[in-house]
Each structure stands twice: as structure tokens, then as C-alpha cells.
């Protein structure tokens, strides 16, 4: 099957610091890829290269057949197909929860306010927060805010969802409610790339695990293989610290 995300030869530096070296990654539709690795290994930067929040210095990223780096590509159009969930939620604090979900639907997808609201409410019900539609983001707990952020991304009907350490800023008791929403999403066949430190989630939900270190993909494989029989010493060493 044609991959829905293809990264080929992607490299990225910040100043003199080379944070990604020659990243090659194909993600199939409906696949859940979980990226693990130590802090500073380039996981988030790789994820952010997929929707061009970071522009690769070298290589190409192709989303659903559209090259992000080709001339004439409208980046905003392609970003619409890739929902992103951030570590710090990044909800719009000046807008009510409902308006957080409807704004881009109306502005970008050109839906009517009624359509957008209907979509937003059905997603808020899905993440269990329909009663918070008129609340402002400040009044939400971290777990609630992240569920709203997931709903906001889903409201655009993206083809893929990118998660950048979605539970890292949460109090431990709120991690579960966010992971539950992500599990449900995976079971519905959403294509997902998830950067996380939640090894339990990775093992349970991931179709494929990537282990990154020093800006490169060191090892990849299905969870049972990578977690039980890692092929490289570096993967073994990392897993021995986090498991």
C-alpha cells in the first residue's frame, strides 16, 4: 500500500547542532507508529518536520502524495490534513472551548458555523467534555485541556494525527484519560505518529516502534520484538532505564 507519510533523507540542524540525520520513514494508512528515545534525540523535531513546523534542511516529506518541499505546494492545505497535539496543549486561551474547535473549521474548511458547531459538539461528546463547551481553557484541568486539544485537531477531519509527547505535561492521574482517547482513535483506524515516554501505551497500541537516538532512527520493529528482543545495544540500554 502507498504510504500516507514518507520522509526521505530528512536532515535538520539548529545552528551548528545537527538534530536529525538522514531520516527515512514510511507510514502506512491506519498505522500507529510510536517514537521513543531519550530527550534531545530528535523525536519531536522529526515529528514537527512532518507538518513543516520545522523545515527540513535536506530531504523531502510527502504527505498523501503531496510533497511538502516542492515548489508551489500550499503548506497550509497539507497541514490541514495532519492534526497535531502538543505537549503543552496550546489551546487558544481567548476563545471558549467550542470556539477553539470551530474556528479553523470555519476559516480553513469553510464550514458554516452550524456545521462546525455540530461537528465540535459530537467530538466533545466523544472525549467526554460536552459540558465544557462554553468554558474557557483556563478553567480546564491538564487532562481535560489535552482532550479538547485532540478534539480540536480531529474537528478538521485530518488524515493523520501527530502527537508530540501528549502526556508529558500532565499530572500522573490525568495521563490515563488522554491515553484512553488516543487508544480509541487508534482502534478506529486513524493513522498516528506518537512521540511519547509512555512505554505501556507504546507496547499496547503501537503497530511499530521507532527508537531514536542522536538524531537517527537506531532501531524499529513491532513492539513485541523491540521491547522483548532489541537488536542493538543502545536500544537495550535505553529500555533498561525506562522499563
Amino acid at each position, binding site marked *: 500500500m502507498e504510504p500516507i507519510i514518507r520522509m526521505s533523507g530528512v536532515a535538520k540542524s539548529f545552528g551548528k547542532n545537527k538534530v536529525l540525520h538522514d531520516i527515512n520513514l514510511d507510514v502506512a494508512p491506519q498505522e500507529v507508529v510510536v517514537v521513543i528515545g531519550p530527550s534531545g534525540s530528535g523525536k519531536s523535531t522529526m515529528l514537527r518536520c512532518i*507538518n513543516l*513546523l520545522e523545515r527540513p534542511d535536506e530531504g523531502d516529506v510527502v504527505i498523501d502524495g503531496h510533497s511538502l518541499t516542492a515548489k508551489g505546494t500550499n503548506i*497550509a*492545505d497539507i*497541514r*490541514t*490534513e*495532519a*492534526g*497535531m497535539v*502538543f505537549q*503543552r496543549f*496550546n*489551546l*487558544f*486561551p*481567548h476563545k471558549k472551548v467550542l470556539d477553539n474547535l470551530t*474556528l*479553523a473549521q470555519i*476559516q*480553513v*474548511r469553510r464550514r458554516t458555523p452550524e456545521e462546525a458547531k455540530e461537528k465540535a459538539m459530537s467530538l466533545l461528546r466523544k472525549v467526554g467534555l460536552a459540558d465544557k463547551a462554553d468554558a474557557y481553557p483556563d478553567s480546564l484541568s491538564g487532562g481535560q485541556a489535552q482532550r479538547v*486539544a485532540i478534539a*480540536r*485537531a480531529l474537528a*478538521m477531519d485530518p488524515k493523520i494525527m*501527530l502527537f508530540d509527547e501528549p502526556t508529558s505535561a500532565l499530572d500522573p492521574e490525568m495521563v490515563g484519560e488522554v491515553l484512553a482517547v488516543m487508544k480509541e482513535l487508534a482502534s478506529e483506524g486513524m493513522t498516528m505518529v506518537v512521540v511519547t515516554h509512555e512505554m505501556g501505551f507504546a507496547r499496547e497500541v503501537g503497530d511499530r516502534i521507532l527508537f531514536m537516538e542522536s538524531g537517527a532512527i537506531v532501531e524499529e520493529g513491532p513492539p513485541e520484538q523491540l521491547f522483548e528482543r532489541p537488536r542493538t545495544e543502545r536500544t537495550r540500554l535505553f529500555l533498561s532505564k525506562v522499563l
Partner: protein
Amino acid sequence: MKEGAGVYYAFRFDIIEDYLPLLLKGTLLTIGISLAAIAIGVVLGLFIGFGKMARFWPLRWLMSGYINVFRGTPLILQVLIIHFGVIPPILGTTNGIVAAILALGLNCAAYSAEIYRAGIESIDAGQREAAYSLGMTHAQTLRHIIVPQAVRRMIPAFGNEFIVLVKDSSFVAWIAVPEIMYWANAAKGQYYKVWEPYLAAGVIYFVLTYTLSKLLQWFERKVK
């Protein structure tokens, strides 16, 4: 009453009474000049502020230059240069009120530009990234996400700038614009009395700036 003793205890309310109609007319002029200068400053400052954040470096360089010049030289100098050097070639004659509005407006624009820039830059990068990740364009992101949040943070700084501008408008007495300070000076010249005219002017300026600050506080509460 003995001659000379009046310096200490005979406050001459009659001087203020005498000049009150002129001081009040001057007050209206101060208000008018200030409002016009604020309007120029706020609008022009927007362009200068965004110009300073532009990707195109010559524009950035030009706008930085503007801001540095107007912030780095005395306002009174700007008033005099504009009054005697800039306005006559344009209008064919001097015009104090036009020069006053222009000088205060251009000066206000430099400070306003920095307020806009600081306000925009104070918004967390995550807000922009979230908007982009939803497919919003740069313009949509500015309009719906960045500017509405930044404006709230700019209000106190603008309030401060407006208050400074109202007070600094007193400099234009130098070019014979008949505003508050001009008439206070005139009264001092006529009666050789310092306290009465200057205190009267001080009270008027204070009432103006205090009212303005209360107005801005109310506005700030309203948008929050």
C-alpha cells in the same frame, strides 16, 4: 494687607479666574491635539511595528531607524524641527497646530510600534504553531489568534504611552500653540506670579491624565 506678605499667603484666585476661559479653551486644544496625535501614532505605529518584524531586511532596517531616531532625540527638538523645518515647505507657512499634531503623532508612532512588536512577540510560539497545524494561514493566525491576545497585553502599555503624550503635549507651547501650558505661561508673564497659573495648569493636566487612566482601566477590564 502689607505689600510683599502676599507672596506667602495671598493666593490670587483672581488670576486663575481671569485666565480660566483661556485655560479651558487651551484644555480643549490639548485634548484635540492629543487625540489627533494618538490616532496618527496608533495607526502609523502599527505599520512601523509590523515593518520592523518583516522578513524583508531593508524594511526592517528602515523601521528600526525610524524608531531609534524618534526615541533617541528630544521631543522638543522634533517639535521645533517639524514646526520650522518641515511644515513651512509643505504648507507654505508655519502652522503650530499642524506641527504639534504631526510631531506628537510621529513620536507616538515610534513608541507604539515597539508596543505592538512587544505585544505580538510576547505571545507563546505554541499559539502560532497550533494555528498553523490546523491549516490556518499566516494572516488568519495573526487575525484570529495572535492579535486578539496581544491587544489585551498592549492595553496597559498604550495607556502609559497616551498619558505620557498628553503631558508631553505641553512642549508645543514653545511653538505658540495656545494650549494649556501656553496660557499658563501667559498668565505668569502678565502677573509675575508662578504658583497660580502653574498650579492651575497642573490640576488640569492631572484631571486629564487621571480620567484617561481610569478610562483605560475600565476598558482593560471590559476586554478581559
